């Protein structure tokens, strides 16, 4: 042991430089995979670099090698918590390029399945958000609600997660018999679970303190960062494509757009909570208003014909063969079609040269720009605030990284 120095320069002796840590890519709070490179000053984040791309699988490159119909399974894997929404968005974009419209019953079923997908996405986001703040019970309540919903979806299209349900000009299957009754049973249970979930969290001091006034953004900044969806509405901008540019039959349905005020995590949470109720109401309205009729476009050149038609109808067989081998001959041109995804504006920008394959199949992923704003939202806050902020931004790896 040496003698203690009489005069210690604490500034040079103490370790005061920033601590750089890697959070992720495999971290329980980074659902999907994303890496945060965080420079910490004590518990304060002084600099953060968000690195995405761990789930990049070349969505566009794969699509360019596929026929127009072959793209559907790839779209499932974009926002995998809300698959049908991606199917519907892509199908509507292709239909816009061709210039056809699906029959009315098909449009109602698409709305029903879209809203179920939105609910599934919101259940996942809210449940995971609660879990990562320590609320295991609340998580299980919404996972149960999601399971019940997935049972319904499974009845319709046979799959629980990646549905591959929609086709150009129609659907793969009609709703099964007695579907409406089972929806009523499930929704009664889901409304109970909604109440329980709300009771567990919304009066919980710890939960509210960690959510309120954290990760807030003003309406002006939200626009500048290209926000859309629940995060945009939480900031007080009532931008919902179902209202501003109604597609399918949304203009015939009665529903409201929940809007927040401060744009913080609590508002984002509440916007999603109320959207769950609105989605349930939309589905119930659709089940009442839905007409009987065909679910596929009547021109076999564009629709995916059923096996019955293919074996008994000359035209259906010819076009089935041609479309399977060469792809649907979508006319040359370019379109952009946005739908309201679970996270915001899900837009498909398609370029066709008239062959059976897309020249370009670009998806505009809503959570890509949302994630880019994490740096702006979180620099200067505590490390612990990163968790609820990131949860409510709701990065879905499949959609962000494509």
């Amino acid at each position, binding site marked *: 042991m040496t003698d203690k120095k009489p005069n210690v320069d604490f500034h040079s002796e103490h370790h005061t430089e920033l601590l750089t840590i890697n959070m992720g890519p495999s971290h329980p709070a980074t659902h999907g995979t994303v890496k945060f490179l965080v420079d910490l000053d004590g518990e304060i984040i002084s600099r953060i670099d968000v690195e995405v791309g761990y789930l990049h699988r070349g969505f*566009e490159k794969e699509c360019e090698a596929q026929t127009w119909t072959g793209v559907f399974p790839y779209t499932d894997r974009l926002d995998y918590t809300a698959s049908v929404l991606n199917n519907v968005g892509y199908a509507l974009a292709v239909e816009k390029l061709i*210039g056809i419209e699906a029959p009315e019953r098909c449009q109602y079923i698409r709305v029903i399945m879209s809203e179920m997908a939105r609910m599934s996405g919101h259940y996942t986001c809210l449940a995971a958000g609660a879990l990562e703040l320590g609320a295991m019970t609340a998580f299980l309540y919404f996972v149960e609600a999601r399971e019940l919903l997935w049972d319904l979806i499974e009845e319709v299209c046979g799959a629980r997660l990646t549905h591959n349900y929609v086709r150009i000009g129609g659907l793969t299957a009609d709703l099964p018999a007695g579907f409406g009754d089972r929806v009523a049973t499930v929704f009664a249970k889901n409304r109970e679970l909604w109440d329980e979930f709300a009771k567990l969290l919304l009066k919980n001091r710890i939960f509210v303190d960690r959510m309120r006034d954290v990760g807030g953004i003003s309406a002006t900044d939200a626009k500048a960062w290209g926000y859309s969806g629940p995060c945009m509405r939480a900031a007080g901008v009532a931008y919902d494509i179902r209202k501003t540019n109604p597609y399918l039959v949304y203009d015939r349905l009665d529903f409201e757009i929940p809007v927040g005020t401060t744009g913080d995590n609590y508002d984002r949470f509440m916007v999603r909570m109320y959207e769950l109720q609105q989605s349930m109401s939309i589905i119930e309205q659709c089940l009442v208003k839905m007409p009987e009729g065909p679910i596929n476009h009547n021109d076999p050149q564009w629709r995916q014909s059923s096996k019955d038609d293919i074996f008994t109808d000359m035209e259906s067989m010819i076009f089935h063969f041609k479309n399977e081998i060469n792809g649907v001959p979508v006319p040359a*041109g370019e379109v*952009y079609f946005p739908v309201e995804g679970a996270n915001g504006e899900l837009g498909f920008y398609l370029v066709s040269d008239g062959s059976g394959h897309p020249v370009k199949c670009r998806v505009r992923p809503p959570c890509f*720009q949302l994630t880019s704003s994490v740096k702006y939202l979180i620099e200067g806050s505590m490390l612990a605030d990163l968790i609820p902020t990131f949860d409510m931004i709701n990065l879905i790896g499949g959609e962000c990284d494509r």
Partner: protein
Amino acid sequence: MSAKETAKESPLMARVKARFQKGDTLLFTHSFKGDDTVVVRADEILTVMDFLKSDPALDFDIILDVTVVDYWTKKGVRPASAPLQPYLKESGARYEVVYHLYSVGKNHRIRVKAPLAAATPQINSVTSLWVGADWLEREAWDLYGVVFRGHPDLRRILLYEAFQGHPLRKDYEKTARQPLIGPRN
């Protein structure tokens, strides 16, 4: 086709056409399937974008998307749709940078396209106008190799730094493998 277009031209397109002379900055316009589209000279992109954002009648406050389309084929550069892209051949361009803008207040959309030459595709960054274009331009650089001049942090985003080439270019083989990944098995 052009007669039809002018018959139902939106006020938005009329305003853009009134500001920019066709042939000088504006190369082409169309409203195919109702999507209002302006094609502008790449050098003038900031002037056009600034006008679209700051003009009170247009008020494009959100940038939705920035992407690139590559028209290279094995038989040379070919437009996907000849009536919509008569400018592509004469300008000698191979790429097109495609922007999608939206105005929350006015509830209208526009697509802005800028053709770029093959050798060194470069265009000015619009991050000074919309901060949300940051990652979108990084992605366009990453996947297409288009340089955005004036971008604050133009790094790869979806791929890793050692990746060679830009995979969404049409001359990048779908089956190509990268050195870091190594041979199959």
